[in-house]
């Protein structure tokens, strides 16, 4: 499980860098966070108290914080060490394993890799890679000048997920349903996700099934234009189920690879709206059996312990495949994701790190934790 630690620095993926960059702001304003604590030579009780405070202030929650600390304390006793470096290693591994548990479970569920597609794209990708490096260099130089971090090249889907083929072996679109509470950042996350897949070479169509909030359809339309993907809409106030149905139908008729369906924000304790969401899921299933293939909860990283309730109740209603942790460019550290991973085994799949369509990355547990420790 801890093979991750064997990775060499230079082997760290771009994803990891991006996660760290995303958390850069957090550190610069959050005050050094954990790593400063580990600069001590020896570990004292006061040290653990400070660790506890730091974790709580990152929204990990009271219980998980306590659990992490107790486990780490036990291991430091077992390994009979009070040296801060050792303790830091132990502590990191405890945090990472919490996330990895959920992550690996989810990775096992990842649908088949579209190999042919990947080969086709390899050449394009190589070209893109050259371009990316060039831009990255450029950006690094700029950053040095400005003295602050900016995300490097836009993330690109390396693998385009595919749905199982139809009865006659025909290709079927892969349907993603996006859900979340009001103001979580669903619409923006969809813009990012569609950019991510489009840049990865997939054709994408959006479904504007948030027919409730004023301006929501407009907002997604504008994004669709910017990203350059088609969008299926209906009038504001119309039935979101029919929008979802139409979108899936459109994708099936036009051979689209990826369908992303937006939904209205809903609070997880609102029975009627949660039922409505189940209705949307059913209408997608009606339009294409086996769909949706992926249901993602968009969660605001500045949210606290209520995130657990969100994950739990949305998961109870439609079954979640993962979380998009949005607003991670702020100073909120999204620590509730640890608690969710630990308790519900729902992984974070992506992170949103800004307002641009490219401020987006795949979630990397190791990088995330390292970023929290980074000095």
């Amino acid at each position: 499980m801890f093979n991750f630690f064997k990775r060499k620095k230079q082997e760290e993926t771009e994803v990891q860098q991006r996660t760290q960059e995303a958390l850069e702001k957090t550190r610069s304003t959050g005050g050094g966070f954990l790593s400063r604590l580990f600069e001590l030579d020896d570990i004292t009780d006061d040290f653990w108290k400070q660790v506890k405070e730091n974790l709580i202030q990152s929204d990990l929650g009271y219980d998980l914080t306590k659990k992490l600390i107790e486990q780490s304390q036990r291991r430091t006793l077992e390994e009979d060490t009070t040296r801060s470096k050792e303790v830091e290693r132990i502590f990191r591994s405890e945090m990472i394993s919490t996330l990895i548990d959920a992550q690996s479970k989810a990775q096992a569920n990842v649908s088949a890799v579209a190999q042919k597609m990947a080969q086709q794209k390899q050449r394009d990708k190589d070209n893109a890679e050259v371009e990316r490096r060039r831009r990255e260099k450029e950006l690094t130089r700029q950053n040095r000048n400005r003295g602050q971090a900016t995300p490097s090249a836009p993330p690109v889907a390396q693998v385009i997920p595919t749905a199982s083929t139809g009865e006659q072996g025909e290709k079927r679109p892969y349907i993603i349903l996006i859900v979340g509470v009001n103001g979580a950042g669903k619409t923006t996350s969809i813009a990012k996700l569609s950019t991510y897949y489009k840049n990865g070479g997939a054709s994408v169509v959006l479904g504007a099934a948030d027919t409730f909030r004023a301006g929501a359809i407009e907002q997604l339309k504008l994004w669709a234009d910017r990203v350059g993907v088609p969008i299926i809409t209906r009038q504001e106030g119309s039935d979101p189920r029919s929008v979802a149905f139409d979108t899936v139908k459109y994708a099936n008729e036009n051979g689209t690879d990826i369908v992303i369906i937006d939904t209205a924000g809903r609070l997880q304790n609102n029975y009627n709206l949660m039922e409505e969401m189940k209705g949307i899921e059913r209408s997608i299933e009606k339009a294409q059996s086996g769909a949706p293939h992926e249901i993602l909860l968009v969660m605001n990283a500045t949210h606290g312990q209520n995130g657990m309730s969100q994950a739990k109740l949305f998961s109870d209603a439609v079954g979640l495949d993962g979380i998009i942790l949005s607003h991670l460019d702020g100073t909120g550290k999204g620590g509730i994701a640890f608690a969710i991973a630990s308790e519900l085994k729902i992984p974070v799949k992506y992170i949103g790190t800004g307002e641009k369509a490219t401020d987006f990355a795949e979630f990397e547990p190791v990088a995330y934790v390292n970023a929290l420790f980074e000095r």
Partner: protein
Amino acid sequence: MFDSLSEKLEGVFRGLTGRGKLTPADIDRAMEEVERALIEADVNLRVTQEFIASIREEAVGEAVLSGLNPGQQVVKIVNDKLIETLGGEASKIKFAQQGPTIIMLVGLQGSGKTTHVAKIARMLRKTQGKKPLMVACDTQRPAAIEQLQTLGRQLSIPVYSEGTEPKPPQIAKNALAEARKLGNDVVLIDTAGRLQIDEPLMAELEQVKANTKPHEILLVVDAMTGQEAVNVAQEFNRRVGLTGIIITKMDGDTRGGAALSVRAVTGVPIMYMGTGEKTDAIEPFYPDRIASRILGMGDVLTLIEKAQQAYDEEEAKRLQEKMKKGSFDLEDFVEQLRKLRNMGPLGGLLGLLPGVGKQMKELRNALETPEAERELRRTEAMVMSMTKDERHNPDLIDASRRKRIAKGSGVQVADVNALLQQFRGMRQMMKDMSRGGTPNMSALMGGGGGGGVQGAVNSRKTQMQRPVDPLAAFKSGRPPTPGSGPAAGSSSPSRPPTAPGAGQYRPPKKKKK
């Protein structure tokens, strides 16, 4: 998910009552539970620590030591202190002596600024007779202007916008001139969501302020915000000087500790809370309610109000008449069901009750099931599939009508039978009770609604204790008595023997994946 603080403290102090004296160690343990409760409610750690330091002094005082139930007393001290910290009285918007009152809303992305601009505009027009103008200064988020315009159209409130090209400080300035020209006496400025660490955007906000000199600068805070609420509030306060706070999304199941955090660090009053997506879902902020919510003690007042809204008095009188005459029909029955549903999901309502933790856990679990909710809907569907005559006079319903109703509502004939039996039993009981002299109207009404639930619970889980209508006490204006859980079955309507088919179990549909 959360256990209430009172329960926890009961645990801490259990067995100590006889000892007559609390050691400092006991207090420490109690304070640890208080800390835990506050942090689970998303109160900021620093705020929590200061808070605890201040109550510890009171807690080690005589009051607790001489108390019969130290746990309750600690809760009381904590509760009082919370209310005090949250600010005693609800605070209102102060209007300008002359010229338009300028109100600016600021906050992070997704906190609900645009929605609350519309809510406040609507509220001020309705309650104060103001003529508001809404100003679209969010040039960042795609379609934010369209959102405000749509809301303006819905409410017939004018919106001033210049598109996304001009700079917000300029738009705001022009809007003021426009307001003076049009004679608007309130100007509400919607600003883009921004991070408190985003230097250019924060500077821009200062510019908007300088250009418009707002009378009120309100920070919009999502009630679900975690530990960061403190930094957000502090920084916005430092940059633009807040005059008030709006806590949004309070209709969620969040404990709302962020309210305490922002209030504690800024010292400005929390003015309103947003309680829904519709433009009328805004309420004054009541510190006492939030205090008990933070402590997980249930929001009794909100519950009572919700119940009152759904069951107004006239309605109750009308029903009473009907029951006396025995003319309570299926239409009234389904009406009651709808009312019950309007109050929100049953589970959510029960979550507002105090003491749900212990006595009512079983009941709550039974009612929280999707099956219970589904049963309510099925009942409604059956009644809706009847003709008007059938609803008024259920005795008309013969075998072939039953078949038709079952078909129309997608249920089995047995289900229709069960409903009719249940209804007859209830009607009979109503007659009996009204003959009996002093019928408890409210309990009966609850029984009407509860009947559906009860049917659901009993038919699904035959081993369940018979639940009573949890709202009965509230509707009749009596305070809830702890322990009046499932055991107090006397007020629940007597039911006929179980109808055929009512016991068969229908498993909830599983997700196909």
